């Protein structure tokens, strides 16, 4: 489905990805975890065409797509829910969702209403707010909208940058359940960055730990869950934390 080889990306002067390789099989849920500044968002952005890699290649469904523009990739079935939500602030919730289906609007106009209804059922909160300007939504509501908008594109590969960010626990559970359903019902493949590692590893099949632009650990979820480094640093199962936040970044 997706193959990434030896990806190098610079953000300004910062060498954010230093040779990352991953691959996703169709229908798989793949998790990327790692500390702040590891390059997770950069990885997703590079795959989705937002940033140009300085080296390395990306294949999607067997075709090379390195450096292809995001507007092109979404037509091919790859949708990204970016960091920081990025909703269309001045447009209503409804318009935001409709625009999610921009690339298939002409051909499949009839199915849009139904898809939108499904999404509003998944996020009842959004249904209550459907006419409101997206920019005035609460943080969590915007997050739902961002995910919903990407789903409106009916992607084959859904890429999510911290989808649980700002969502209430109940909502996270429901959302992740929905992801599993969609994988089952339409064979959706999911690439997911999560800080809520417990939730992520709960639904993922495989994953990697990214640190400072490198893949530190790679494997199936059960391998990751028991990997000592993952345990200590990310699942937080250690007795006494030192009294300063920030993590091993920088």
């Amino acid at each position: 489905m997706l193959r990434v080889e030896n990806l190098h990306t610079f953000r300004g002067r910062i060498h954010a990805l230093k040779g990352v390789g991953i691959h996703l099989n169709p229908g798989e849920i793949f998790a990327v975890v790692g500390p702040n500044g590891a390059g997770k968002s950069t990885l997703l952005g590079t795959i989705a065409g937002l940033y140009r890699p300085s080296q390395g290649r990306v294949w999607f469904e067997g075709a090379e797509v390195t450096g292809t523009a995001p507007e092109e990739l979404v037509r091919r079935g790859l949708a990204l829910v970016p960091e920081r939500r990025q909703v269309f602030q001045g447009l209503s919730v409804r318009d935001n969702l409709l625009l999610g289906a921009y690339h298939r609007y002409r051909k499949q106009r009839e199915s849009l209403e139904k898809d939108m209804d499904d999404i509003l059922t998944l996020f009842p909160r959004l249904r209550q707010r459907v006419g409101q300007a997206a920019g005035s939504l609460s943080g969590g509501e915007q997050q739902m909208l961002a995910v919903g908008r990407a789903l409106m594109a009916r992607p084959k590969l859904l890429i999510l940058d911290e989808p649980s960010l700002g969502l209430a626990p109940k909502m996270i559970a429901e959302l992740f359940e929905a992801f599993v359903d969609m994988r089952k019902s339409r064979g959706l493949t999911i690439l997911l960055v999560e800080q809520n590692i417990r939730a992520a590893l709960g639904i993922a099949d495989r994953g990697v730990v990214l640190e400072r632009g490198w893949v530190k650990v790679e494997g199936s979820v059960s391998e990751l869950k028991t990997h000592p480094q993952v345990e200590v640093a990310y699942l937080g199962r250690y007795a006494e934390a030192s009294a300063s936040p920030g993590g091993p970044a920088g």
Partner: protein
Amino acid sequence: MIRRGPLAQLYPPSWPAIVTVGIVLAVIPFAFGPYVLSVLIAVGLSSIVAVGLSLFIGYAGQISLGHAGFYGIGAYTSAILALRGVDGWATILIGMAITGGVAWLVSRPTLRLEGHYLAMATLGLGMILNIIMIQWTSVTGGPSGLTGIPPLTVGSFVFDADWKLYYLIWVMALLVIWGFRNLVHSRVGRALKALAESEAAASSLGVPTARFKEMAFILSAMAASLAGSLYAFYLSFVSPSTFDAIASIEFLIMAIAGGVRSVWGAPVGAAVVTILSQAMKSVVPALFPSAGGEYSILVFGVLLVVILLFLPQGIVPGLARGVLTIRHRWTRPGDSGSAAPGGEG
């Protein structure tokens, strides 16, 4: 390389640049004739306006298309009062006071506007001031303006020759640059930059955003007024077309071409724009003898576009970044975590 403390890395001292520029400017009259002086005087006057503008635009994050109006208030106040026998220096201060007052009066409602609304409102303000200059004939002399403004004096020393005004104007300009640079590298400057980026966050930290914006506006208007007064004493003549909307836009071009996020951007922008448009007048006809004045305008426009396409942050920050990149390549090849320090030259 001088090793500097970390704070000096953030806020490098301004005196080295000021002294260097001051020395260079001081010797110019000995090397060049009055034409060069007159161009540099124009640069100096525009610098004062543009420095104020760049505080208001680059630091406080606002926009003004009306500063020529304030420039005009200064010029007309000095002209009108000096013609009625008021001491020249006093007219400068009175001009700044009036300008400050006008700016204060209009700032309340105006600065509540944002972005393009603010641009339009300040454009309107400038145009209203300009119309007053044109129409209040009994005081301003109407469209053809006022002539015969007596020169500034100190005791028996009269500022009547270009070189004298040249020194006066540049001493003032460097003072203003020094002051604004102090300002941006201070608690006040930080607060301005902060409110430009997020008013919500700035106010949540105790910055009275409305008042700081007003102060920045008033201060930049007063700088323009100072320049206007000096202009009046230099030309001994003022007329309204000098202070129209186009003039406001020209000041804006200078500030932005030089780089509004750097205090030195303003004088550099003023110099580049003034000297370019003057140089075009000599260069274009020399290269294409058949060309008329229209070519120099055209070439000037092209150069403006090219400069900003290649140095979108403006000349000074653009060049500074270039220098840093080169130095960076030399000293630390390959990857490195730390980017350039944010302090500007």
